[in-house]
């Protein structure tokens, strides 16, 4: 069935939808960052993702590699802050792992995403419970893999990932930050959702919604 693969166009749709979501939620993301950071996560993500989508619209990518390498480079060179290199590396690694193909099957997508996670860890050294985007990315990919192992199709796996992402996002509220700008707050970081965790949850919402629509 067609749902067993995902095309470059669908993946482009994912990024486009992610841009829509961060744009919709820009104030929410910035508000989260006001509480435990420096009030720029919303504008950082929209600046980066709108540049990514502009690029996709100007010249649609032919391969998964092209799409994500382009998106990653755009984020790295237009965002700055912590989120630029982290999201940028995430996408760059996805592109490099997927290679110059037009579609990915489920295992291909899963391993590309996991390589992306590896990039985030390599760059940011975040560990479980540090109260970062890692605390959404890791459980979301675990849920994605588990769903596929349980023979779900990609859209169902994406929904499972999104559900785990939301749980992970909400769980960051109780955590004490140990990485990034929020870590300076110590105890006072407790009680607030991590902004990067929230935007990463939007990333999986975008994937689930993009695939769900078909």
């Amino acid at each position, binding site marked *: 069935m067609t749902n067993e693969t995902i095309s470059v166009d669908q993946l482009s749709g994912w990024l486009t939808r992610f841009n829509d979501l961060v744009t919709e939620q820009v104030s929410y993301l*910035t508000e989260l960052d*006001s*509480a*435990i*950071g*420096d*009030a*720029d996560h*919303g*504008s*950082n993500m929209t*600046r980066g993702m709108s540049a990514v989508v502009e690029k996709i619209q100007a010249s649609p990518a032919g391969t998964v590699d092209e799409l994500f390498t382009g998106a990653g480079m755009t984020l*790295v*060179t*237009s*965002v*700055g*802050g*912590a*989120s*630029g*290199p*982290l999201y940028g590396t995430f996408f760059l690694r996805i592109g490099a792992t997927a290679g110059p193909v037009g579609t990915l099957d489920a295992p291909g997508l899963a391993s590309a995403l996991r390589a992306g996670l590896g990039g985030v860890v390599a*760059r*940011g050294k975040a560990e479980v419970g540090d109260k970062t985007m890692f605390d959404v990315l890791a459980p979301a990919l675990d849920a994605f893999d588990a769903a596929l192992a349980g023979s779900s199709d990609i859209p169902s796996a994406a929904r499972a990932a999104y559900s785990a992402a939301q749980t992970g996002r909400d769980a960051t509220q109780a955590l004490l*930050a*140990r*990485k*990034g*700008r929020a*870590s*300076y*707050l*110590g105890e*006072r970081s407790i009680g607030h959702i991590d902004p990067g965790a929230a935007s990463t949850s939007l990333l999986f919402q975008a994937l689930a919604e993009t695939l769900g629509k078909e």
Partner: protein
Amino acid sequence: MKVNQEVPDMKKLINSPETVLADSLAGVAAAHPDLRVDHANRIIFRATPKAAGKVALLSGGGTGHEPLHGGFVGEGMLDAACAGAIFTSPTPDQMLEATKVVDRGAGVLHIVKNYTGDVMNFEIGAELAAAETGIKVAVVVVNDDVAVEDSSFTAGRRGVGTTVLLEKIAGAAAEEGRDLAAVAAVAQKVNESGRSMGVALTSCTVPSAGKPTFVLPDDEMEIGVGIHGEPGRRRVPLAGAAEVARQLVEPILSDLDFTGAPTIVMLNGLGGTPLIELYVMYAEVRKILDAAGITVARSLVGNYITALDMAGCSVTILKADDDLLRLWDAPVNTSGLRWGI
């Protein structure tokens, strides 16, 4: 995208949150013929590069801390400054471009304030420079903010006021002709010998956020605030200048022993506090240092590393020695710091 003539929804002299960085760089270019602004890459360079064979200094960071860093580009200090969006690190392509332009054959020192974003972006910039060019790059990461107590469980101490002193002193070392390792060593020594602590009386307002980052009641202040409006050690009742000075200086003195050496002391305004208050604070800081038997050899009072329109100040104390003092006194000719020229 907001248009130019729109009524701003906050009390700021800007055209729009989206254009503030480009607009301010246009102003810098118009005001300072000694500087060359690369608007596409958002880099401020010296108009006249330094002599070949000398080490170049590159810094940069989020915009909103003016005069840092662009105001410190010039003879005796930085060779270039990369400007990020407000409170957001610049991007690696900027650092790559700037590194290529400023290198005079003796390598480039990257001066990075210790924030996750800045460190990662400069890191990628240096990786790209290593991959694409043969330019030697050394890095110093400034982390002098004593407000961050458990630095082993965090991203480490933030880079704040010592950055200003470091850029001046390392700049003089480079101008003198020291090699990259030696300039980096001086920079490292300044970082290890400098400590800072700040206080906010009001929050800053990030233009794109449109409202204050945090809300401080009328009778409270934030001790240990960061230069991006990051919360500090604690909120405490508002106090007079003498008591505020005590709350800033004591954590610095308990972090490092400043006795027995000449010190350089900076009383820095955070952007919304007028000079008269900075002098009042400086008088109080000096009383405390005098009582503690600390020798102040040089003073700097003014706005040097700011946090947009935040009301408040920070104290930086640097334990110096003859070499550092000599480098401090060396000529400098930038828009933000100028003497001996």
